[in-house]
């Protein structure tokens, strides 16, 4: 598996760290225990095309959103995760 980082180009897998499914969204603070349980513990664990977060620790150190097939490891899209590469000094 190689990942084409939108900032660095095609790099080998060893440069990246995996977080997991990009779908779970942190619930609002008043959402209640069930919503937090769902967010922290439950997963769709998709067999097929999945959107997931990877970290390019061996390169630009940006968070990436990778679309990958868990049955074949084929990667169909890589884009910066929300906010990646957009930090500004003092922002």
């Amino acid at each position, binding site marked *: *598996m190689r990942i084409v980082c939108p900032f660095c180009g095609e790099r*080998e*897998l*060893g440069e990246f*760290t*995996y977080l*997991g*499914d990009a779908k779970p969204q942190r619930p609002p603070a008043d959402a209640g*225990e069930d919503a937090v*349980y769902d967010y*922290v*513990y*439950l*997963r*769709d*664990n*998709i*067999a097929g095309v*999945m959107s*997931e977060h990877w970290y390019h620790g061996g390169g630009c150190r940006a968070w990436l959103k990778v679309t*990958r097939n*868990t*049955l*074949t*490891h084929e990667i169909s899209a890589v884009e910066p995760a929300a906010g990646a590469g957009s930090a500004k000094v003092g922002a």
Partner: protein
Amino acid sequence: MKYSIFSLARAALSGHKTWKPTWRDAAPKDRYDVVIIGGGGHGLATAWFLASEFGIRNVAVLEKGWIGSGNAGRNTTIIRSNYGLPGNTGFYELSMKLWERMEQDLNYNAMVSQRGVINLYHSDAQRDAFARRGNTMRINGIDAELLDQAALRKMMPFLNFDNARFPVQGGLLQRRGGTARHDAVVWGYAHAASELGVDIIQNCEVTSFLRDTNGKVSGVETSRGRIGAGKVGMAVAGSSSRVAAMAGLRLPIESHVLQAFVSEAIKPLLPNVMTFGAGHFYVSQSDKGGLVFGGDIDGYNSYAQRGNLPVVEDVCEGGMALIPMIGRVRLLRQWGGIMDMSMDGSPIIDKSPVDGLYLNAGWCYGGFKATPGSGFVFAHLIARDQSHKEAARFRLDRFQRGAMIDEKGQGAQPNLH
């Protein structure tokens, strides 16, 4: 048929033409009291315990491929009960005790070899942690010995004791741990279960659950037709989320790939099973002579039964760092299996929220050693609708209750367990 020294001699003298199949390859009936999904070690062990201990013999085991074609045939054959947390300690010891009598119980040679399992430590802090775990084991009646470097040098003089990053200071030894022949475990349970009337049905993939008017599971739709069931148990680690999804359930599990390796056969070298956790490497030597080894999971969700090269490199580096002399041994085979990585690194054996459906899942990369224990407590749960006391903490709702069993203390990040 019953195996003994006499049956062996008789078959040998008749040119090995009189052997009968080890177990019966059955066709599905319309209905069973219990249907177990998954013909791996856990599923077959469950069926055997249901029949032998709990008096339920109208049982079918459904396997989508051939029995033992999943993780039962892909693991590194290690058995041990060296766990430190309440819940795990007692359960794995129950399993170890069942390993010790399995071959007699099943009338089958599973080549259970209690050659010892050693976990290496490399610092004072790690030694203290291992001493604590060893003490926990001994308090619970499990054998454990803390070895210093001198003792280890006698057993394995070839280790790289003076490694600059991870000098080997000693190890925690469980002498009753060891290995078992993984395929024979599957065939042994299949043999014994089949003798008691259990139907083992291969090439039979479950495609959906049948529900009665109350929502209770009343059977399964399969690639070989509809099969009714009083109760359905699933033991499909690696695919638990996919099967559970057919019943509308989401589980605290991610599927990850773990790779394993075997080298060409060499003369006897390793006297026991050895784990080098700091270097992501563990190894034993098969009776055929190959070094059987592995390391960490690849770290990303996967249902492909193959991994990638960074982990191959990492594992082999770990091996070289610990035992430099194996550097010129050639790798023979390498493969991958799909692990049910749970959110706390411990298994789930519980009734599911769907009436009539029972869960046996989340074994992470440690399911093989649990095979007999898992079968026993799962059969107990299915037969009596009540958790066995040694599995009482493996509940599905423990994540909601904050009662995790997190042996590594990693939190809800499955790829770190």
